[in-house]
């Protein structure tokens, strides 16, 4: 198939999954316990890697930027640089990429192996809609949990930055904190929470689509997992650009 048609067909399938999930929100049956279970797996399960990523990203930002800021004698603004880059960009994007790797792959592998072992067909044959039972709880859980994980990554990133600034560059903690406070606005925080809502939707819908469209046995499951992580990650990065532009316009972020 022509690559453009293939892309459009996939886009149509993902859009249909999102639409059917959205419509399922408004009618019974609803699978609350499955949604809570997914929230636990996605949110609590991903917490350590996301916090670790945030901590070391904050740390390395200070490590790399502090000498430059020092050169211009504005090293007291190191907190501001870390906070703005973390909260606006790196927190949401890196959390989404980590979750895409950990959860997107797990979702597509689980659904893919259910497809090849006919469990999805069995579910439909038993009168259950897989979109309602499997897809919707995962998408909802990702949309709810990814912003919370992002906030956790942001906080640990700032802690990482403060630790590096203090231990390596001997900057006083209150100076760093004051710089952070001056550097970020409410709009930054709102923007940093809006982005992961969309990223959660992207990761969930792409992973579910790739899983449910698995073909070709166990080899196909492996292919679905790879495609899911790569596609979701690329879409997160592309969407991040357009979301940043939209948020700049809507929330007046990053303009002086």
């Amino acid at each position: 198939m022509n690559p453009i048609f293939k892309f459009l067909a996939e886009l149509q399938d993902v859009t249909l999954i999102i639409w059917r999930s959205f419509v399922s929100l408004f009618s019974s049956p609803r699978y609350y316990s499955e949604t809570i279970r997914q929230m636990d797996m996605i949110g609590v399960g991903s917490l350590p890697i996301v916090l670790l990523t945030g901590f070391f990203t904050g740390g390395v930002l200070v490590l790399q930027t502090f000498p430059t800021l020092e050169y211009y004698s504005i090293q007291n603004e190191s907190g501001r640089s870390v906070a703005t880059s973390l909260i606006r960009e790196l927190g949401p994007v890196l959390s989404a990429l980590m979750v895409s790797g950990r959860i997107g792959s797990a979702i597509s592998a689980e659904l893919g192996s259910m497809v090849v072992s006919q469990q999805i067909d069995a579910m439909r044959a038993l009168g259950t809609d897989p979109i309602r039972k499997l897809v919707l709880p995962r998408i909802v859980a990702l949309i709810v949990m990814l912003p919370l994980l992002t906030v956790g990554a942001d906080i640990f990133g700032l802690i990482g930055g403060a630790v590096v600034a203090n231990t390596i560059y001997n900057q006083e903690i209150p100076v760093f904190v004051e710089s952070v406070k001056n550097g970020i606005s409410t709009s930054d925080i709102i923007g940093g929470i809006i982005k992961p809502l969309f990223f959660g939707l992207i990761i969930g819908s792409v992973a579910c689509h790739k899983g449910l469209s698995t073909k070709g046995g166990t080899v196909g499951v492996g292919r679905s997992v790879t495609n899911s992580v790569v596609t979701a990650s690329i879409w997160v990065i592309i969407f991040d650009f357009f979301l940043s532009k939209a948020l700049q316009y809507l929330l007046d972020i990053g303009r002086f």
Partner: protein
Amino acid sequence: MLSANDAEIQAVPADKLQPMDISDAIDQPHRSQPAIEFRDVYLAFDDNVILDGISFSVRRGETKIVLGRSGGGKSTLIRLILGLLKPDAGQILIDGEEITGYDEPEMMDVRHKIGMVFQEGALFDSLSVYQNVAYRLLERGEDDEEVEAEVRRMLRFVDLEDAIDKMPNELSGGMRRRVGIARALVGDPQIVLYDEPTAGLDPPTARTICELAIKLRDLQDVSSIFVTHEMNNVRYLSSEYATVNDAGEVIYEKEGERLCLINTEIIMLRDGKIGFQGKDEELMRSKDPYIMGFIHGKLGP
């Protein structure tokens, strides 16, 4: 021979448990309506024609055995009945209701009437045997005690009550199929579809699966489609019937002078069309080289 406990699943009294006579269909007009009907159904994947104008019907209490080579559209028939696939043309009727144009929510209601036994069992790996068999009832939100009673009844029917707390990965291939049958039978569907339920099983286990299908056909009046390519299954299903003896035990007897089975017919798919339709005796007498090759396991390219 199965125990008396197994007979409790029967819906009709033991003295009436004989294969249907043609006069029953006349006495009970609703029985004249086929449980499943295909009318000139076409299906192709790209240029590959899978079904090329298939028409047949399955009467109530009848078993249609569908034979054919691998990839010949046998399983596709079943997927069409369940609405997992849609035909390119033609009509499919379940209980006289045309389902061809139904969307997914409408098909959910139709699927409640149908039990489906998958090739490998298709049990949900993350759920126990109990949860698998109870799946349909739990989805309906039925009372826990009633669910457990029904699950135990079904597991007794397939002689697996002891496995109720096991996970699917602890079961053998044959046990998985039997749990699959128990799951399909919950809610007493009047239509059961078997998709190669004995593939890869040892002969005694395959025989047990066939006996379950015979028991459902003759004691429960279930209409079914039994997809297979194993001639042993054809022999069992088309020459034996289940009845209940004086001790209340389910027994299997061969058709003969006393009783001739009229509730089982064979369909053979060939190049997307029905290559043969009739009784097992007619199949065995056929001089068609393709059919003879199929029966004797020497199918040409």
